């Protein structure tokens, strides 16, 4: 197996919208991107066609449509979410996931609805970097793939200031190696790329490579996240059928409100869960909190907890009657949230590690409060009973700790001004023109969308630029 998070991610494949590239112009916070939606759009189109994504055109102003394969029909609880959304004026539309509901070429199969995308698809019917990008790349014969290589630093020529290669340690043999290169492209994920650059110190680059601005590691931001679960009594004693569907939600809610009318600046989308999934570790836990609240088949209430035939029947009756909602929103990027090299700690290869400084601001906390209020509205509209007590100010309204949603971006941000950005608009380092960063590190702002599709589009754009610059003999 090759690669990292694309092996087990949720396949949520959203384009950023026009407003997502110009947040500062809209609300005065953070920074605008040096590029706009029209610049990235052709690359989103290419990514759609190469990789495949299902969904349905919705023609929304800030959630642009992709080139879609047919979406799977909603499951039962998802139809209930849609009905509740209609009553509340909250859009609940087909989700947009990079899973092939139809074959797109002879190399990859199409989805057979086993719901196990997070284990990596053996038919290559969903997107992972290894199955969809690396394998075809290796097949060209133009690629030498070195696995188990832990990059230590980017090496530079002290007179020209250009990168000359990368040093790495073989994780199996613990031996040291160097690779010479004309161009170095980092795609190690936002924090690891920042770590590599910060560790690439030299007399010429005392603050690390591509860091004369001092911004490398700064503006680190993750998606916000808050969740709530509920029990839907009318789903008790459900009819059984195979409702696995694809390995993710079939519907979702894109951001639908105007922040000018709200007390927080950025939006969020809602992801929906529920259904008769495959029982796994944790199945049935906490029945003692549930089976005392609802009448039995005889219409009578009974004592919570218990054992025996009646308890066994409860597990059957309650199966498939729980739902969940997760908000995933945009945080405001700030220089105060950053990662930096820990002066005292190295990893097992002797490479200095990162330490993190990250605090949520009122913007994110108020957004989480809004999520919780929305979740309860939806639960009530569905005739459900919310699980546990409503998260409040005592725990930031259930706002997950920074880093938990693993959409970290922004640590090597792009911009037109070399004093306030590490990369230019082609993801190329201002300080060393043969160094590129093509992961989430280049993001100026996160948007209320998952970052993968934009990472892919910007990576493709940087690749085109590299080819062009090599042809022009600038690289």
């Amino acid at each position, binding site marked *: *197996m090759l690669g990292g998070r694309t092996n087990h991610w949720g396949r949520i494949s959203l384009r950023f919208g026009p407003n997502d590239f110009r947040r500062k112009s809209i609300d005065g916070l953070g920074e605008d991107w040096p590029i706009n939606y029209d610049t990235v759009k052709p690359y989103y189109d290419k990514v759609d066609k190469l990789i495949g994504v299902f969904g349905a055109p919705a023609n929304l102003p800030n959630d642009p449509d992709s080139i879609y394969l047919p979406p*799977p*029909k*909603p*499951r*039962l609880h998802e*139809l*209930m979410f849609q*009905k509740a959304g209609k009553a509340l004026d909250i859009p609940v539309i087909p989700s947009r996931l990079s899973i092939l509901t139809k074959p797109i070429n002879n190399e990859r199969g199409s989805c*057979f*609805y*086993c*719901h*196990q995308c997070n*284990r990596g698809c053996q038919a290559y019917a969903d997107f992972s970097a290894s199955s969809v990008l690396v394998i075809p790349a290796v097949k060209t014969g133009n690629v030498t793939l070195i696995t188990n290589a832990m990059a230590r630093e980017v090496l530079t020529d002290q007179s020209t200031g250009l990168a000359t290669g990368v040093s790495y340690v*073989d994780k*199996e*043999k*613990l*031996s*040291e190696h160097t690779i010479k290169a004309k161009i170095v492209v980092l795609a190690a994920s936002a924090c690891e790329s920042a770590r590599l650059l910060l560790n690439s110190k030299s007399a010429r680059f005392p603050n690390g490579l591509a860091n004369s601005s001092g911004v490398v590691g700064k503006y680190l931001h993750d998606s916000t996240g808050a969740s709530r679960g509920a029990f839907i009594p*009318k789903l008790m004693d459900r*009819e*059984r*059928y*195979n*409702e*696995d*569907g*694809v390995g993710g939600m079939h519907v979702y809610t894109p951001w639908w409100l105007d922040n000018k009318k709200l007390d927080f600046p950025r939006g969020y989308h809602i992801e929906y869960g529920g259904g*008769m*999934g*495959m*029982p*796994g*570790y*944790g*199945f*049935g*836990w*906490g*029945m*003692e909190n549930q089976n*005392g609240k609802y009448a039995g088949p005889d219409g009578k209430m009974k*004592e*919570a*907890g*218990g*054992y*025996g*035939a009646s*308890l*066994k029947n409860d*597990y*059957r009756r309650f*199966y498939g009657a729980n739902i969940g909602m997760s908000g995933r929103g945009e945080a405001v990027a700030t220089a105060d949230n950053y990662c930096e090299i820990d002066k005292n700690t190295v990893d097992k290869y002797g490479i200095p590690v990162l330490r993190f400084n990250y605090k949520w601001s009122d913007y994110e906390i108020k957004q989480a409060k809004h999520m919780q209020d929305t979740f309860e509205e939806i639960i009530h509209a569905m005739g459900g009973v919310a699980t546990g007590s409503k998260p409040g100010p005592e725990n930031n309204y259930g706002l997950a700790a920074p880093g938990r949603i693993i959409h970290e971006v922004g640590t090597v941000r792009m911009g037109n001004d070399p004093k306030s950005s590490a990369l230019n608009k082609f993801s190329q380092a201002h300080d060393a023109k043969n160094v590129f960063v093509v992961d989430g590190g280049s993001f100026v702002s996160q948007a209320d969308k998952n970052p993968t599709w934009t990472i892919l589009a910007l990576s493709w754009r940087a690749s085109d630029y590299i080819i062009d610059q090599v042809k022009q003999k600038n690289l």
Partner: protein
Amino acid sequence: MKRRDTLKALTLSSFGIAAVNPQELLAEQRELELALAESNVEDTIEIPGGRTKEEAIHDAQLMKMTFFTPAEMATLAVLSDIIIPADEKSGSASQSGVPDFIEFMVKDQPNWQTPFRGGLSWLDLESRKRFDKVFTSLSKEQQLKIVDDIAYPQKAKPEMSQGVAFFNIMRNFTATGFYTSEIGIKDLGYMGNRPNQWDGVPEKVLKQYGLSYS
């Protein structure tokens, strides 16, 4: 290189031949560690689908260890069958392998070892206090007298709180162990995890809930 060959080749540097590059020594040391990790389990280790070699080695090592005593395993079997007995639809918790599942889980997640061992001890102590015998030697009626005092968290007496906490854990692990077994999945009626085509909710279910796709 095969593990046997690795073990043979190691003699080169393990006698401390001076000229060997320290990097290579380190690399050989690492190969030795990997080879020994494997030799601690089986000569040939089978790697199930979806597992890495390291995970397969980890699992094989866990399976070789024993945590619960035979007496503890017997108590787990009796208790789990009180929680999920056989009925007209399916077998019991112990028939589905719940005690073995708990044995595996406490080795995989050692933080559960004390709650289980301690909870089982609590149960035997309570049994001795009341009936002068360990739990498994009690009559069914006597066993249920104790279980009735710890199975209902909201009406249990305060002095039973530790027993209640243990029984909650036991109930949870029994449910997960049973319903993730083949018997339990059939009992529950889960029909997925197999190739199929999803074409939406069956018509009669849509009608039942007053929903439609149009």
